[in-house]
């Protein structure tokens, strides 16, 4: 039975920009919280708030940018795989994670790139696996029910 395509995402070339923006937002806001708390914790007592501000102003945009690059590359490879294979599968996402990890570590040499690619692929495989398990667990709620026909006597035959 073919897996139904995800209609909540926009069509493929345009979704790359949406993913870029969403990843940047997640990285920047998450990084703002994380580095704010870290900066506040690592500052002397009277200087907690300025310390938090300095830390998050320096680090949060960088984390946002890193997330954005990761998400944008992943989405590009995902759309590329969908276009080449003409199928919508979890394998597209796993291969895209593999390629993204490899490309982002390419400057370090082949061994580092392969390691990073493998980590990216495993990470995506875990995410997809959890998604499949969850959708199977909740699939019973969407089981189609046969409509109950009213009881009508069949017409008398000729």
């Amino acid at each position, binding site marked *: 039975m073919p897996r139904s395509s995800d209609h909540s995402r926009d069509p493929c070339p345009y979704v790359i920009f949406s993913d870029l923006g969403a990843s940047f937002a997640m990285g*920047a806001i998450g990084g703002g919280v994380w580095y704010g708390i870290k900066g506040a914790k690592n500052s002397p007592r009277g200087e907690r708030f300025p310390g938090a501000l300095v830390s998050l102003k320096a680090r949060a945009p960088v984390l946002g*940018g890193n997330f954005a690059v990761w998400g944008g590359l992943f989405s590009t490879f995902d759309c590329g795989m969908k276009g080449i294979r003409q199928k919508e599968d979890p394998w597209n996402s796993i291969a895209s994670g593999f390629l993204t990890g490899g490309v982002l570590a390419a400057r370090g040499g082949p061994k580092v790139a392969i390691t990073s690619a493998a980590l990216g692929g495993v990470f995506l495989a875990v995410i997809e696996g959890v998604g499949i398990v969850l959708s199977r667990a909740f699939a019973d709620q969407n089981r189609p029910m046969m409509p109950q026909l009213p009881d009508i006597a069949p017409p008398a035959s000729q």
Partner: protein
Amino acid sequence: MSQHTTNIEEEESFAPIYANQEDFNPQDTVSSFLNTTYDPTRLHPLAGLGGGLDYLNLDDDPGVLPGTQGGLLPSRGWSDDLTYGTGLTYITGLSVGGAYGFYEGLRSSPSPAFKIRLNTVLNSMTRRGPFIGNSAGVLALMYNGINGGIGKARGNQDPLNSVAAGALTGALFKSTAGLRAAGSAGGVCAVIAGIWAFGKDAIF
């Protein structure tokens, strides 16, 4: 008596064409009874309905937001503005910074060897590109967030919302540099946001 007529109302009856012996005419050909007023287009399920079915005139109500009418920069609401706006601004900033870094790296490379030039170019691209990209992305994120917030609070989407959002974004961005820097940055960003909002209405 022949009961066969060619009236329109009688066509739906299933009486045989030659009900009586007198109807049989040896000069009749196949085309004389096959090519009657039978019109195949009347078999279409929607034939003959005219304008009576209002539910078929589906006009997707595009909504009051200016972006939903389509055009060059369509947008379905604040979430679209947030994701697509931030994404486009980030990638534009990254490309501009990357191009600047590319040019700078090509110019300042210490040796003409390809590998060294490639390394220098990549280094300067990754130094310049993310800085401009990240700053542009943060500005776009704050602007779209505040714009959406003001729009929700006011209940309507004005270009004035954009100007106010631009002012607040600039002020917030430079808020740690002092009151004067925050004020001037707020002013500059309000002007840019105003040009963007009013220009978008005028051009698109």
